[in-house]
């Protein structure tokens, strides 16, 4: 609205320019009597002054007087605490700018002080002498005077002191209000008198009224010109209007203004026309908006420093604020005033006119403020804003005024609800406090104002409110503001605050900062924090404002945050117990706390930490800054149980990462532990980085269950460790050993308690893939031995011996030589497969006997019950091969010795730990039985077990296979050895006879053999020795016959002599040999339908038995008898005679066959097969040599 016209109309006269703008002015102030309230002297307390001022303002802001014509008038007064004399110079232009009254306050104790107070009062009087009507001084002395207006006894006022004083004895000042009102009325009367004076004057006689800067303009002008006379009159009428307004005659005032407008318009007296417009507006505003006397209270008690000039002004204004709200008179306009919308129009006109004068800038600005206040009252924010926008002109003015202007603008914008504009202005005001033009920069004020701007820029200093989801405002502006806040804080000597703001900047604005800005901010922070380390605690400013803590959550940037389980062997495990404590219900349907757990299940880890144990969290950090970052004192932030964090430090090279860091700590009690985040010390700032404030974290917090203390053990073994072990579960150490099959070894396992609490429970078990039977053979230990060593105090050790045995299957049904490639379907047909050539030379005894005999056996078997025998044989062989296959070769048996242990509180809570020892036993084959058979022994109570034994080692082996019988075998050599074994006694067989199953019988017999035979081997040249057993032999039916003790006891007599098996029989040709066969039943049940037969044959020793001996032998008597029954323990005897017709070797085949009659339907097949078609043979066959007599 300003135009170039102003330059033409008035040349700058800086001295006359109003230099103390009063932006607080309202339209209503045009109608007020201006009174200065001034404390004098140093004795009076500011508090007393404040209280007195308040009282004066309350009673004297609006009062009624009766004028000379007995009319009631309402008069307004305005009180200021400070008023520049220069402003009174504008009193002609607008009379409300004149200071009419003065009230001073002072306190004295003695005459000297009183004199000084009087002197000061007089000084003020002189200062404002041009406009002052009257003054009062309120003097508080040591004692009260009888008459208020006279000094108390003993005191006198100086002779030149002409002012009416109120002498009070204390600061209660009882009738102050009345006295002040009296004083004010006095002022009014003077004013009204002057007004009346003016009305009586002729307008055209009045001297030209001038604004201060106008003086020069009128020099040399013809004041008597018609134009100037009109100008004179117009100005005089306007002046009268001012006085009338002050004197409470609103109608008169308005009329005066209106006529002044007409006059002044005619002479283009823009400045005074503007003033007349303003006057119209003021009257109208007072009539229309009586309550707008004072703008809403400004911050009255905001921290005020006496020294700060800006604030002082505010203060002086503030003291004029209160107005009793009871005066709520709604004035109905008794005369025509401007319509509301016309008020702003007039103001706009006035402003336009003012703007034509460069020196009227302040007046113009003040008018704008007044206009905008009216617009706010009219609820026309846009209009108000338009007025305020006019204020952004660049009139050169001192910084202080700019500050004033901007703060006032901010206030008004705030009132409009234009928070952004308000903040914008406040920020300008703040910057002017420290601008280069300002001689005494005040960073404190600058900071305070900047802080007030945050709300308008939607910047909250609480990081929680600046999270990405609810942040608002403009980042670029906010960044600048934060930088300015930091600078101001730093310059005003509060590095803690500066650090806080920079930290905040880096926390909340990180994503909006450019790379360079980040670097700069970080470097700046580093520099600032050297003066004052940042810490995550709220900062309280002097003004009471709290700056919440900020944290460097982005520096370094956290990529991941993962809680770690304890090492497997330290993980607590629930001890499985018989659930006896749980009451009668094994399952309770009430799942305690299940709902809770579900809601937080995401962040609750499914493992446990242990009180007293170091627990870890691994993090991945990234340094986004282009310089190396030192992060020290990193700790975990926790909640819940006591947690002792171990500080960690790390250096991250420039722009690198992710780098892993492990934060550790020790929980110190059992319960629930919450991990909230971590704290850092970086760039000189301590930060609490809560996960919920860190970007892209999965969980806001983690919850871990901490169980009570548990002991810790260290486990060592006496054996060397394995090179590597397969499954690394909770294995702490390992042991390895090589054993030959059947060898045993010991391993001492030492358990050391390395924890803080005693080990009270140890439970040892072995886990392996072996079946439990084999496992129990391979691993054995003495449980009791260990238990006696408990409890194991800290730092003590206990040991346990683990016995290991290489339990192998020594029986391998494969014959190594012979049928290669073809797996034999008949495991026990050893002799038929292995030819004589393969028989080892050292095989001692009955070689050919064996062979021959077995051939009979096999052929016989196939004849009698081929179906059952072959099927069972095949079945067992296949089963055996499956079982034996993994074990017969050299292999490694792996096992884990699980040591479950517990103690202390953790034991009470039902937790334990498991440490495992990995044990690898390499089982090397020692001896192997590749084939076997049974042969009749020399004694009927025994039989020979013939084994093909291979030394699988590379060492020479001594094999001790029976009492006093041993052989030496070279490495990899095979031998055939006969072992005399007692036949399986009947009492063992009876156990199975009931069910009568061949398989069972077979098993019993095999066990019988295994129990009686032990092959003790020793490798010569080494310490190794061991024992091979014969478990796993399979026996065919025929073998069983030999193995088993026969149920029939034979008693053979030859020629009436009892025959013993060792006896050698001889007879001559033609002799009659009498053979008596006695059979007795050793079973407990009768045998039925037995056929006892005696046959003779010749053994050709080539596998051919010749039974057709009709021409060579003649038998007298039946060679076959039937025995219908043979009672238990019963005996049958039968005799026949034999005559040999030719010489040669003959053999008796004496056998007893049972043939159960098939008509018995109840007999099962198994019984048939076991009992029915059975043949018992007397072994060995009796051999008789027939020789020629001659």
């Amino acid at each position, binding site marked *: 609205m300003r135009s170039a016209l102003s330059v033409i109309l008035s040349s700058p006269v800086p001295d006359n320019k109003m230099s103390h703008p009063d932006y607080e002015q309202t339209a209503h102030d045009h109608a007020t009597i201006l009174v200065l309230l001034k404390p004098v002297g140093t004795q009076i307390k500011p508090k007393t002054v404040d209280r007195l001022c308040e009282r004066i303002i309350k009673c004297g802001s609006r009062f009624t007087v009766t004028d000379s014509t007995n009319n009631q008038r309402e008069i307004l007064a305005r009180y200021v605490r400070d008023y520049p004399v220069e402003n009174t110079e504008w009193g002609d232009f607008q009379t409300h700018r004149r200071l009419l009254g003065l009230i001073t306050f002072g306190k004295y104790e003695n005459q000297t002080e009183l004199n000084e107070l009087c002197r000061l009062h007089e000084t003020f009087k002189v200062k404002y002498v041009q406009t002052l009507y009257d003054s009062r001084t309120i003097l508080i002395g040591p004692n009260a005077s009888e008459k208020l207006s006279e000094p108390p006894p003993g005191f006198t006022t100086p002779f030149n002191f002409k002012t009416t004083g109120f002498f009070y004895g204390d600061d209660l000042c009882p009738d102050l209000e009345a006295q002040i009102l009296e004083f004010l009325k006095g002022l009014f009367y003077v004013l009204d008198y002057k007004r009346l004076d003016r009305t009586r004057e002729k307008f055209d006689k009045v001297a030209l009224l001038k604004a201060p800067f106008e003086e020069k303009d009128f020099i040399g002008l013809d004041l008597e010109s018609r134009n100037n006379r009109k100008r004179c009159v117009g100005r005089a009428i306007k002046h009268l209007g001012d006085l009338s307004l002050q004197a409470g005659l609103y109608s008169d005032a308005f009329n005066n203004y209106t006529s002044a407008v007409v006059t002044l318009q005619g002479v283009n007296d823009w400045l005074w026309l503007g003033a007349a417009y303003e006057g119209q507006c003021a009257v109208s505003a007072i009539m229309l908006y009586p309550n707008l006397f004072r703008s809403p209270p400004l911050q009255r008690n905001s921290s005020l420093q006496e020294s700060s000039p800006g604030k002082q002004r505010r203060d002086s204004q503030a003291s004029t604020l209160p107005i009793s709200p009871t005066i709520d008179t709604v004035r109905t306009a008794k005369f025509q005033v401007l319509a509301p919308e016309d008020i702003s129009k007039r103001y706009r006109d006035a402003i336009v006119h003012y703007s034509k004068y460069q020196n009227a800038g302040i007046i113009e600005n003040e008018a704008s403020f007044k206009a905008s206040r009216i617009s706010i009252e009219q609820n026309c*924010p*846009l209009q108000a*804003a*338009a007025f305020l*926008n006019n204020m*952004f*002109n*660049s009139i050169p003015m001192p910084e202080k005024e700019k500050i004033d202007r901007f703060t006032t603008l901010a206030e008004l*914008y705030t009132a*409009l*609800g*234009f*928070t*952004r*504009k308000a903040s*914008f202005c406040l920020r300008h005001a703040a910057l002017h406090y420290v601008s280069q033009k300002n001689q005494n920069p005040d960073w404190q004020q600058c900071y305070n104002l900047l802080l007030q701007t945050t709300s308008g*820029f939607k910047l909250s200093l609480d990081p929680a409110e600046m999270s990405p989801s609810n942040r*608002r*405002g*403009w*980042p*670029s*502006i906010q960044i*600048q503001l934060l930088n300015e806040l930091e600078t101001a804080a730093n310059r005003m000597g509060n590095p803690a605050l500066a650090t806080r703001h920079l930290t905040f900047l880096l926390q909340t604005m990180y994503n909006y900062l450019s790379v360079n800005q980040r670097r700069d901010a970080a470097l700046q922070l580093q520099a600032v924090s050297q003066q004052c380390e940042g810490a995550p605690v709220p900062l309280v400013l002097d003004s009471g404002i709290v700056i919440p803590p900020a944290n460097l959550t982005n520096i370094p940037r956290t990529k991941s945050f993962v809680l770690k389980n304890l090492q497997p062997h330290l993980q607590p495990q629930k001890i499985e117990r018989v659930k006896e404590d749980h009451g009668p219900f094994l399952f309770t349907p009430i799942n305690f706390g299940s709902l809770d757990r579900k809601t937080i299940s995401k962040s609750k880890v499914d493992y446990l930490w242990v009180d007293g144990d170091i627990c870890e969290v691994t993090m991945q950090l990234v340094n986004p800054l282009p310089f190396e970052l030192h992060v020290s004192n990193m700790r975990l932030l926790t909640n819940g149980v006591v947690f002792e964090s171990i500080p960690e430090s790390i250096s991250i090279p420039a722009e690198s990462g992710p780098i892993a860091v492990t934060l550790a700590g020790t929980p110190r009690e059992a319960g629930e532990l919450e991990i909230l985040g971590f704290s850092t010390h970086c760039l000189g700032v301590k930060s609490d980085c809560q996960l919920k404030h860190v970007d892209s974290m999965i969980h806001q917090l983690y919850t871990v269950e901490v169980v009570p203390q548990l002991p810790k053990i260290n486990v060592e073994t006496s054996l060397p460790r394995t090179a590597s072990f397969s499954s690394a579960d909770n294995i702490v150490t390992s042991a390895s050993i090589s054993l030959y099959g059947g060898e045993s070894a010991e391993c001492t396992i030492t358990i050391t308690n390395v924890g803080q609490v005693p080990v009270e429970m140890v439970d040892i078990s072995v886990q392996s893939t072996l079946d439990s039977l084999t496992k129990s053979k391979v691993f054995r230990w003495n449980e009791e031995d260990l238990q006696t060593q408990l409890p194991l105090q800290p730092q003590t050790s206990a040991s346990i011996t683990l016995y290991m045995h290489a339990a192998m299957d020594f029986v391998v049904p494969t014959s190594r030589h012979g049928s290669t490639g073809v797996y034999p379907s008949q495991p026990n047909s050893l002799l038929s497969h292995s030819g004589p050539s393969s028989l080892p030379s050292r095989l001692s005894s009955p070689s050919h006997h064996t062979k021959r005999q077995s051939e009979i056996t096999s052929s016989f078997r196939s004849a009698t019950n081929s179906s059952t025998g072959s099927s069972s044989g095949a079945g067992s062989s296949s089963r055996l091969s499956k079982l034996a296959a993994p074990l017969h070769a050299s292999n490694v048996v792996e096992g884990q010795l699980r040591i479950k242990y517990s103690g202390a509180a953790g034991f009470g809570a039902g937790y334990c730990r498991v440490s495992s020892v990995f044990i690898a036993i390499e089982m090397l084959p020692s001896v192997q039985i590749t084939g076997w058979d049974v042969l009749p022994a020399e004694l009927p109570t025994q039989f020979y077990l013939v084994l093909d034994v291979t030394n699988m080692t590379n060492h020479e082996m001594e094999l001790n296979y029976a009492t006093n019988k041993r052989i030496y075998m070279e490495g990899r050599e095979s031998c055939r050895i006969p072992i005399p074994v007692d036949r399986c006694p009947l009492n063992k067989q009876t156990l199975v006879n009931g069910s009568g199953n061949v398989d069972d019988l077979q098993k019993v017999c095999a066990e019988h053999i295994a129990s009686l035979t032990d092959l003790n081997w020793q490798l010569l040249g080494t310490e190794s020795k061991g024992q091979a057993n014969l478990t796993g032999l399979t026996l065919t039916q025929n073998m069983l016959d030999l193995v088993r003790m026969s149920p029939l006891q034979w008693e053979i007599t030859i020629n009436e002599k009892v025959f013993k098996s060792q006896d050698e029989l001889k007879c001559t040709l033609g002799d009659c040999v009498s053979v008596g066969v006695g059979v007795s039943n050793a079973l407990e049940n009768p045998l039925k339908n037995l056929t006892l037969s005696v046959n003779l044959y010749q053994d050709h020793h080539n596998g051919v038995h010749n039974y057709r001996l009709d021409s060579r032998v003649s038998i007298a008597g039946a060679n076959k008898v039937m025995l219908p029954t043979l009672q238990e323990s019963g005996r049958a005897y039968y005799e026949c005679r034999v005559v040999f017709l030719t010489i040669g070797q003959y053999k008796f085949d004496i056998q007893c066959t049972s043939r159960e009659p098939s008509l018995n339907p109840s007999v099962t097949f198994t019984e048939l097969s076991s009992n029915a078609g059975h043949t018992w043979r007397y072994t060995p066959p009796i051999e008789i040599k027939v020789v020629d007599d001659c």
Partner: protein
Amino acid sequence: MAVCVAVIGKDNSPKYIKCVDETNALQFHYKVHTSIDIVEEKLNIGTKTVADNKELFLGMLYSTEEYKIFGYATNTKIKFIIVLQSSNATLRDNEVRMMFRKLHIAYANVVSDPFYIPGDQIKSRAFDSAVSEIMS
């Protein structure tokens, strides 16, 4: 012509701001930012009273000695701000209207881009070039 063009979202956050003089960008940020107050006020009046001005173009928001700031708000409460140099006296309201029209068309195209998520910062080359056209 225009020295600064800005798009402001429903929530009054900046979605796009481009200045001719990027070194002095912050100054324009402030100008645009404070103009939101007036835009809001104008929109408020629009809903409260039966204002005859139902145009999307909001006219001049305010002026300084150097600049004139114009506003425009779409029906979807997206605000466009254009800052013009005060010295450029030849510009008429209708020309400013045309600028906003162009800007609105460009913006509608941005929103139609399936890869643009409404509410995000505008990073469209097509929009850039439309803005450059307005500023040239």
